[in-house]
């Protein structure tokens, strides 16, 4: 058995445990694959199912979100994520954002960063061929000029989205709260009267900075506070 077979071996063992409803075992097996450095959307998806069956809503949301990053157009992942999100305790209502912004975000999240880059490179190749054709006089007229302009706009746009996604992935560090009733403090220590708010499992939060055993989070509605780092799991 080669080295590459190990994750698949563990994966099928985990799947068998899932079918036998031994969710604890399945969980261990799936987590061990992640531990040794492999990843795949199906792995995270199955892991989410194991967590969901054990009622670890926060962990399940983490796993489905992870799967969704890798495979944004998988309808099963999206469905399970939605079902799990509906079971959260905390609901942070956000004001309705501008529809163009919403559209942009929907488009952006529809492809992974790598898919955006590949798409951008294909369009760029096409553009280069078009320019080549123009220079050798194969295409003439205003129509071919407009097509060239269109291609340029498309290339810039797609690379812009890819850059946006890249910076979003690298600069912000998002995490999912995996424990219930976590008190957020105003500093990285247990103070007396400094509990700012309380969050429950499944809430998404941006991690701004971290100290020993503590992380500073920002909720999507703008609340800021420090929570123990063991109560949040980072999305990569």
């Amino acid at each position, binding site marked *: 058995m080669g080295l590459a077979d190990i994750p698949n071996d563990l994966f*099928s063992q985990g799947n068998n445990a899932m079918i036998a409803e031994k969710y604890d075992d399945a969980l261990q097996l799936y987590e061990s694959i992640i531990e040794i450095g492999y990843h795949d959307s199906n792995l995270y998806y199955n892991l989410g*199912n194991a967590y969901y069956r054990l009622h670890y809503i926060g962990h399940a949301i983490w796993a489905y979100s992870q799967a969704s990053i890798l495979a944004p157009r998988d309808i099963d992942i999206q469905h399970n994520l939605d079902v799990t999100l509906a079971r959260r305790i905390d609901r942070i209502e956000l004001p309705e954002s501008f529809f163009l912004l919403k559209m942009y975000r929907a488009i952006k999240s529809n492809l992974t960063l790598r898919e955006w880059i*590949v798409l951008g490179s294909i369009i760029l*190749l096409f553009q280069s061929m078009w320019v080549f054709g123009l220079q050798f*006089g194969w295409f003439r007229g205003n129509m071919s000029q407009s097509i060239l302009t269109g291609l340029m706009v498309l290339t810039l746009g797609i690379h812009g989205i890819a850059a946006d996604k890249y910076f979003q992935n690298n600069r912000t560090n998002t995490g999912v709260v995996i424990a*219930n*009733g976590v008190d957020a403090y105003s500093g990285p220590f*247990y103070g007396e009267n400094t509990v700012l708010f309380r969050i429950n499992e499944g809430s998404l939060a941006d991690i701004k900075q971290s100290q020993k055993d503590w992380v500073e989070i920002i909720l999507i509605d703008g609340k800021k506070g420090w929570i123990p780092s063991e109560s949040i799991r980072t999305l990569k």
Partner: protein
Amino acid sequence: MRLFGIIFVFTFSIAQTVQISVDRSRIAQDDLITLTVEVTGGKDFAKVDMNQVKKDFDIVSGPGQQTNIQWINGSMTSTKTLTWTLSPKRDGILLIPTLSGTVDGKPFRGKTIQIHVRNSEESSDNSVFIVGEVDTKKAYLGEQVTLTYKLYKNENISIEPFQLPEFPGFWVEELYTPQRIQYRNVTIKGVKYQVANLGQVALFPIPSNKHIIPSLKVKVQVEKRKQKRRRDPFFDPFFDSFFTETKTKVLRSKETKIEIQSFPDPRPFDFSGAVGSFKIVSSTDRDTAKVNEGFTFTISMKGTGNLGLFSLPEIKFPEDLEAFPPTDKFEKDTFRDDLTGTQSWEYILIPRTAGNLTIPRIQMSYFDPKVGRWQRTQTDPIEIPILPGDTELTHGSGLTKREIELIGQDIRFIHTNPVEFGLSKEGRSNTAIFLYLCSMLIFVSPTFISKYTGHRLSTSEGRKIRGALRTGLKELKNGTGEPFEIASRAFYIFLKDKLSLPSHNLDPSSVETCLNKRISNESLNNILTLLKSCDAGKYAPGGLEREATILTEMASIMKHADRVIV
């Protein structure tokens, strides 16, 4: 009473004298001294401020009042005496400080009196003593410290009623209070003693700057047999009991300092102060429930430790469930030294929507001082199917219709197809890199191709030059204005594109300079003549007859120029 000690006499006038005295000045720590303030010739008892004395002594009893009246040789002397019984708080040289007070409204001041107090352990008298025993001297906040007060004796004593001291810095739970003092026999270092338990308490340190177990004070009457009264052996056994002498003593246990240990870091987030060993279990009173029909949900915590000193972490019930504040019940298990029991919370829950309801897992961290580690106990989540009620109320749970739909649904099954696992660090795409390189090559390739093959590239300028004639003819056809004007403008536009001039604002002389050397003089002359006649036609009425032909003439001359201009 034998007046042993120091007597201070203060004379205010002939009539009044105040004496302050103690009965002895060398005592053991568990002995008592009597402080006497005697006023001779006064009308009333002395008023004395005893607050200073309380620093080093406990007032065991007093003040006792006594009045003596004497008639000597016809003159009356009255003596009014106040007595206090004092017990020293510590050993060493103690001072009864300067007593001040008033007699019949007149002030007086005494002097300090020195009392030498021996340590009771040094004293040979070890017949009666109290010990406060603790099971540990180092404790975490909230860890139980069991304190037992024991009385050891090998003489007959009688104990006066006593109270356990206050325990500042501790939360106290009484474990044992004797109804009747019972003695057991023990032998310590070859000496037989009888030992009695005077009370047992569980102490739980709470945050405070001082954790000291204070001493217990008990007043006892010690019976001392009179020595050497063997006059008549016949009577002795019987009369002995009548001839015993009692001595009052105050027994104190030693103060004990409890050292507080700090919890190891990191502290779990769901720690709410529980120290000991606990297990929590939750249950509901039924398996299914209907909408708007209440059921009870019970969490019970069984364990040993500081029960009652902490609460459960707050429970967040799902939003479609209405919860009422719980009732709290605590049952103490009395047959143990450690505080053990079951604490339970009972919630009434009313579901507001039908569907599968999950009461979340409840978890709590506690510190186990026996192993010195953090532990966590948690309940399993409880799933209850909620059947639709008889009348469905409009719910105000804040869920959208889509979310309610989703809550009713189950997740989809796992994906079991074998997958190609990627290493999670791998981020770049080789396809994209290959495509980028290809496009770069294609972008730069025309430059090289033209260099080596001499092919004329289609630049925008080249396209303009080639399209110059077409642009000019188009202007002739579609231009607006007078025919002469159109004709000359069309030629200038043609020339501008053909020669890549910056502007088409030209006149015949600038055309001459531009085209000079590029075409033959004959052609140039033809062009110039035509342009001049256009100008003439524009500004003078004379050229009217040429108006009809000027456009065709210009077209043919432009076609000719396009051919000849290199």
